[in-house]
């Protein structure tokens, strides 16, 4: 009792003891509750844990999809070079730049009267399974920074923001949770977050933000090595791992902190370790090993990292992941970020994406999963030969192959960032099959002429399919923060098979 004067503590000893006993009773009740919570895999006792808004149920009565796969074309996929063919001019020395709208000829698709561009023949053959959006439109944010537009697309909010905005995958993890408790609900495949010019900006949105790390991404930059991320670290055999866990359990229970076992910190350590152990020792982790796939199927997918990522996504969707993103990977000036040599680069990219995407759709269909799996292909904006941003934008022209006429092959391609329209695909998960939504002008500027779809509305459509209200939100710092910006997103009803 140290320095406490005895008279002060003995004044009302009986009341003190009574209060203490009451407190212990409440505590015991809470411990039991915590035990149940741990089983349910929920932790709500953190500091400043966001609260569900009282007046809006986050969940809609009818989801049309249980799982979402986002195929991300990072770097700005040019619509006229892919899913919205326009006037094609083959390369020719001396050809004037302003004559070129597309550098690929159009090809027919499985949907009557709908064309996409050469190099996407496999996707063309499955286009009747989904909706092609040609009127996705981005805001003019002035001078272009890819990662800023990517931040916007992935969170629905333009940075900077006063609170850390959550990634759409994190919202799904938060509101829907895992489909299979052994599989992390939000899996991010193919993006390295270290070691290039915009990695800090990528990290800023590849996060659960204020929702808390529990809902954050499980990052798998190299799909071929995915199996490593769900097995004990290199060199630790299953036997060693089991013996580590066994000793850990024993020692975690003993020790002089026994009484503190009730503390939610300790609960969260124990719960998390057991969750990790469950994944690491479950058969479900086979889903992470793409080499377990029959060789003939593996070979169809194996066009490179992106193709392998699609295969991994399919396996994880089967195993019960909630949200999976597969990216062609954004690295400044690589892949879809064609500041020069655009035609050749896109030609190569198509070889990487065409076969695996089509196969993913067919595989999901064959397994009877396409109906409940929403596959989305999207990008942060399109590209154009002439216009940077949108007509009238103050954006600084960042093309590296500035030439009024084609002098060499590297001049041939769409090298400027264009935000006035871009294309997206949606397959399965209650989305219409064989439908084209929206249109763009036939000539430059290729602006949306019909049914524009903003990022908020695209997200509202995705969330609605997944059974999350576009108005769902959480209270953070006493302020409501919604899954779509200011709860304004509206699902595009025309894209759904049935009325909402």
């Amino acid at each position, binding site marked *: *009792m*140290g*320095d*406490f004067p005895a008279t*002060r503590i003995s004044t009302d000893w009986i*009341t*003190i003891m*009574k*209060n203490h006993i009451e407190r212990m009773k409440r*505590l015991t009740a809470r411990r039991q509750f915590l035990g149940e919570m741990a089983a349910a*895999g929920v*932790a709500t*006792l*953190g*500091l*400043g844990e966001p609260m569900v808004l009282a007046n809006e149920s986050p969940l809609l009565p009818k989801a049309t999809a249980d799982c979402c796969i986002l195929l991300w074309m990072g770097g700005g996929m040019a619509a006229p070079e892919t899913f919205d063919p326009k006037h094609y001019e083959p390369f020719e020395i001396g050809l004037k730049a302003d004559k070129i709208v597309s550098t690929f000829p159009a090809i027919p698709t499985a949907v009557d009267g709908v064309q996409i561009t050469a190099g996407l023949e496999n996707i063309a053959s499955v286009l009747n399974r989904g909706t092609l959006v040609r009127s996705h439109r981005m805001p*003019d*944010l*002035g*001078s*272009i*920074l890819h990662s800023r537009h990517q931040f916007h697309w992935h969170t629905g909010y*333009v940075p*900077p*923001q*006063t609170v*850390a905005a959550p990634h759409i995958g994190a919202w799904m993890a938060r509101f829907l949770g895992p489909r299979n408790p052994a599989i992390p609900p939000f899996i991010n495949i193919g993006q390295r977050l270290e070691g290039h010019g915009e990695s*800090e900006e990528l990290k*800023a949105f590849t996060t659960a933000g204020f929702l*808390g*790390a529990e809902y954050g991404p499980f990052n798998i930059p190299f799909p071929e090595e995915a199996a490593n*991320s*769900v097995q004990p*670290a290199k060199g630790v055999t299953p036997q*060693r791992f089991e013996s*580590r866990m066994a*000793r*850990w359990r024993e*020692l*975690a229970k*003993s*020790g*002089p*902190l026994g009484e*503190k076992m*009730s*503390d*939610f*910190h*300790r609960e*969260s*350590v124990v719960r*998390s*370790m057991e969750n*990790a152990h469950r994944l*690491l020792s479950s058969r479900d982790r086979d889903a992470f090993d793409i080499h377990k796939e029959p060789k003939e199927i593996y070979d169809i997918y194996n066009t490179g990292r992106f193709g392998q990522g699609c295969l991994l996504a399919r396996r994880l969707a089967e195993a019960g992941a909630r949200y999976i993103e597969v990216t062609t990977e954004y690295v400044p000036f690589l892949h879809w970020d064609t500041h020069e040599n655009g035609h050749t680069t896109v030609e190569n990219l198509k070889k990487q994406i065409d076969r695996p995407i089509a196969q993913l759709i067919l595989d999901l269909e064959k397994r009877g999963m396409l109906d409940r799996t929403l596959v989305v292909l999207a990008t942060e904006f399109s590209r154009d030969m002439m216009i940077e941003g949108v007509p009238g934008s103050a*954006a600084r022209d960042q093309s590296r192959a500035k030439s009024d006429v084609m002098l060499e092959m590297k001049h041939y391609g769409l090298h400027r960032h264009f935000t006035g329209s871009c294309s997206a695909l949606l397959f399965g998960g209650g989305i219409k099959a064989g439908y084209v939504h929206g249109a763009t002008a036939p000539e430059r500027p290729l602006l949306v002429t019909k049914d524009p779809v903003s990022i908020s509305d695209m997200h509202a459509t995705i969330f609605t399919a997944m059974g999350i209200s576009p108005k769902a939100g959480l209270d953070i*710092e*006493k*302020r409501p923060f919604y899954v779509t910006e200011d709860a304004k997103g509206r699902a595009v009803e025309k894209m759904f098979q049935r009325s909402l």
Partner: protein
Amino acid sequence: MKCLPMFFYMICAKQLFSAALFAETPKIDFVHEVVPVLKKHCASCHTNGTYKGSLSMDTREALLKGKAAIPGNSKNSEIIKRIHSSNAEDKMPPKGSVLDDKEKQILARWVNAGLPWESSFSFKIQAYMPPIKFRPVSLPAGNGHPIDRLVNQYLQGGKSMPLKKIGDQEFYRRASMDLVGLLPTPEELADFAVNGDSQKREKLVAKLLADKRAYADHWMSFFNDILRNEYKGTGYIDGGRKQITQWLYPSLLENKSYDLMVRELVNPKPEAEGFIKGIKWRGNVNASQVTELQFSQNISQVFFGVNMKCASCHDSFIDTWKLDDAYALAGIVSDKPLQIFKCDKATGNYAKVRFLWPELGNIDANASKEKRLEQLAGLITSPENGRFARTMVNRYWQRLFGRGIVHPVDVMANKPWSEELLDYLANYFKENQYDLKKLLAHIVASNTYQAMVDPHAEDISADTYVFHGPLIRRLSAEQFMDAVWMITGTAPAKMDAPLKDLPEATGPSARKLTRAVLVHSNLLMRSLGRPNREQVVTTRAEIFTTLEALDLTTGSIFNDTINRGAKNMLEQWKMKTPDQMVSDLFLRSLSREPSAEEKAKAMELLGSKPGLDQVADLLWVIFLLPEFQLIG
């Protein structure tokens, strides 16, 4: 009629009645005549959160906004028409007893008198009103530590059990982690245990704080978080951000007083200007996120626990801060007159420069920007500004105890669990020239700090929270990495922070390591909770997540560290038996000897002739124990 709130009687006592607007109308006594009528007939449907028909009668402004009355014109006022109506559709009140004639007359006279209202009165139950200035505290009698005397009084008032003091080893570990972020070595623990000096805890605190380097390394994380300073991050790509490392670190090294630090941040020389410059992304930015508004938000949050984020866009719905207030502060740092945007739309009005609390002083709108910043720096750190001191002592209390006296730390308008304690600490801080080390030493010297953790802490966010000792706290990412690196000798060779010619840490060589705070964040540290620092971060997550468990189990960063560590340990342990190895590791990691049972379990892992794998297994198990990851 039920009882009136307390402040009501105070108003009556002071005879503070509003003057009627029209001299010729008979005087009306708002408090004694009008309020009882409104309370009886209107309040249950139209005040304090219930606003039927969207009409609020909380304040005069609300009443006018709801178009319920026209001042001076009772005939055409809706409220008067409705109380006389017999039409079931629109009569008021719709149910229950109608107003009698006298009551009707009172309201009519009141409307005709121009709706006089007592300016400070609202039907909305007033939330706690935090004081702005310093307030004297009378300490309870006795000769113990002032903090203990205040806390004792608090505990007895709540009829709670007194706090129990922790032992020497626990104290050493806790104080060392809190003051310099490092674990004690077994030798230090042993010396401390046999030291018979009755003042040894105070002396230890002084010794820890005297280690300038270790102290600065530890507190750098806290200040990096709240000032969002980072060595790389968003914004740098376009020169839209500037780090303050070369100002911040030396400031901590020399224990610059907090008020001086803040003056140098708000009215900066080039090396400290990063904080007020904010983060600028390439391209156009929403009006509420321009760097001037970031300045307004960050000054408010960091120094005062005021949320100006909502008010940057529109009048706040959650407190009393208005759009004009956010711009008033933003205007101080603006190079040109700052146009006010409401929800990203230009209003045509311009910011009127002023300070948050005019009672503390003014900013000269016509002065140069430099002068305005100097005036602002002076007002923030004014000897009258108790809110400034309270906000910081509360942040420090939260760091040391796991929960602030006011919770959360960024909402200083919330009621503290002990106003006296908060006031006392704020006064102490000011009287000691805002010396951060003195503040720490003072708190750590109390029995309250040296008490056993409260194992029963229920939801700490609840209004019903009762202080009963420190809470268990989780190690920060930096503390965890430093602990692992220190024990296993695996710290990186060089720092990434742009600092040079730093003094060495004092004490045993094991404590002289490159600290995690001075190297770039990596996947592991991010997963352990080191933030992006895109936003001001004032508290870190307390929850350990499955993704962290996976990173520590499967990730190569941690595994490589463990394997390198195992090699180092084996070399150091060449002459030791497995029994001694286990004891040594327990002491180094958990600051205690293992029990016989624990020793037996641990030795099972090591076997009779431990090799690299066996040692790695033991390190892994110990580092993942809750006891290792928590400060108890």
